């Protein structure tokens, strides 16, 4: 019996051997479909996630064993795709479209309403483990904007009333789309990787543009301003790192207020 190494209260004792027994026949069918069995990786990860509700480390390790692919490669591959959840998620995954046509038809209000009703933000799960919420890119349903998916089933023409009904039905367990299996209790932030926090290429947290180090931060503005107005031809421009270093150096040697340089 494998112990999940991910934090969170266990819903029930996890029995990965049972999961594996359930997935194995499907995994073998999938491997036989392709001239090279590694092609079965994505379908196999889907198969594990369908049973467990998320993509557990054990599932990735097992998929790697079956396909003779190192675990590091499986994890790297899984991390590339947004529909593989490498942390436990809620029983309803709510994915609201934030792209152009939906935004032109009220998606900003829809997203604000969802955040308020659920009390969570983008890439988060409610404390009771029922809802995970994500704002996603174009779902190819622009004719009925604003749109979303609930556990990958489409919901169209969203309005506040519709959202209220949706949430109430899910809470009551009467919603038409089946809940996802839940084998481990999700933490608040379920997403792994670069999207968990907004980081600048220099590594600063820029989750808000005016956060220290963010684009709205005066020093950040100065850096970009200087890059934009730099007299150097592009190829001769100093790297950002050097710019910052030089700036800091100049600051160190700069005369203090009211003091006369000796």
């Amino acid at each position, binding site marked *: 019996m494998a112990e999940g190494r991910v934090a969170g209260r266990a819903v029930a004792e996890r029995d990965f051997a049972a999961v594996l027994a359930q997935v194995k026949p499907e995994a073998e069918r999938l491997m036989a479909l392709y001239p090279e069995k590694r092609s079965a990786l994505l379908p196999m990860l889907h198969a594990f996630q369908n049973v467990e509700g998320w993509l557990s480390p054990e599932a990735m390790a097992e998929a790697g064993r079956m396909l003779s692919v190192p675990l590091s490669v499986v994890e790297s591959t899984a991390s590339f795709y947004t529909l593989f959840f490498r942390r436990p998620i809620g029983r309803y995954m709510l994915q609201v479209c934030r792209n152009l046509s939906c935004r032109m038809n009220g998606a900003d209000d829809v997203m604000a309403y969802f955040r308020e009703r659920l009390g969570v933000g983008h890439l988060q799960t409610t404390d009771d483990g029922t809802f995970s919420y994500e704002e996603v890119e174009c779902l190819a*349903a622009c004719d009925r904007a604003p749109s979303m998916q609930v556990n990958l089933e489409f919901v169209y023409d969203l309005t506040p009333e519709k959202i209220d009904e949706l949430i109430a039905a899910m809470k009551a367990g009467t919603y038409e789309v089946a809940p996802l299996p839940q084998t481990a209790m999700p933490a608040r932030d379920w997403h792994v990787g670069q999207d968990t926090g907004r980081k600048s290429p220099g590594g600063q947290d820029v989750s808000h543009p005016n956060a220290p180090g963010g684009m709205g931060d005066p020093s950040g503005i100065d850096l970009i301003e200087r890059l934009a107005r730099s007299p150097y031809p592009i190829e001769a421009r100093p790297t950002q790192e050097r710019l910052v270093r030089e700036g800091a150096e100049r600051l160190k040697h700069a005369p203090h207020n009211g003091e006369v340089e000796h």
Partner: protein
Amino acid sequence: MPVVKVLTEGIGEVNLRDIGEYRKRGGYEQWQRVATTMSPADVIDLVSKSGLRGRGGAGFPTGRKWQFLPNNGRPRYMVCNCDEAEPGTFKDHLLLEETPHQVIEGMLIGSYAIGSNHAFIYIRGEFKRGFDIFSAAIEEARAAGMLGDNVFGGEFSIELTPHRGAGAYICGEETALLNSLEGKRGEPRLKPPFPAIKGLYGEPTVVNNVETLAFLPHIVKNGPEWFAKVGPEKSPGYKIVSVSGHVKKAGNYEVPLGTTLRELLEIAGGARDGRTIVAIQPGGGSSACLFEEDLDLSYDFDTMAAHKTMLGSGAVVFFDDTTDFVKAAHALVRFFAHESCGQCTPCREGGHWLELTLERLLHGGGLDSDIDLLVSVSHQMTGLNLCPLGDSIEPFLASVVKRFEPQFRRYVKHAEPATV
């Protein structure tokens, strides 16, 4: 010009997911005719003569694409691209779910033409329902003897495998799609070699869009002239156009190429009451905007290209005079920043910083120089990447900054001078 029904015939009226219903309307007859009476060269010739151009975005002539395959005796693969994720596009979604057999028939004809014995369809991860519908349709077709070993008692054998992605726009790029289909990260490959030479598993491969392949049974049935005589000479045929944005009746409308943008607007119910259309994005999120004075342009590959934009995947978004183009630009820039695979620095970093710059503008912390920055950064990203994703930000962003610059300036609040 009226809406036509070729690929969309019967949708919404009968259940075309059912093979019986599809065959009642002549379905799979063309596949049988091709497999039993025509040579692969005949099919390629027919498709070349029809002038069919790829419906996925690039508009490359389909017949010519097929002819690039080398005669090296290696296995060949046909891959149908159903990773539909271009903002504003929702036509493949419709075909996949509503007429799966038409797509299968097209895939079979295409596979036969290029001599492939194994075809794949790559379906975007979000289309879980579409994947289930399509998988069921493949099994129905198999049971009816449409695919498998020695179809119709002949020598040709064909296997068809549906494959579901897992959420990555970039997998719509053909080499990224092939990597993803091989079980790898969906990162585009360096080209050349092109997929026609080294594609799936390193073998000659053709990647065709869903709509492109769905046209094949109709071209075989009606002859190449039927298709070639519709619309402009070099950009002929029909096209499903996904119309959305500020219109009364957004939807998929099948029209002859050469229909004007104004006619498309009328077909989609026109602008909202009391509003006027001020801009049109004619070919998905990667295309440059056209404006109200361009409404009478002919909607076809070459006219769009001549006006420095593109027909792309056939997604037309109409913007009316209520549009905040800073927000619209932000939605699309954020999209491309989010979907960059990260291999090429200009695309990975450029998109990210453009998104942050737009966010700063939207939050009232922008600078006057930000407007020039948007234009120069997006331009500097262009042409320096392995695939077209990094080049996809500039067209829309630059076109709306130029046209609606006051909207961008309105967001600028002068910050305190920097104090380093």
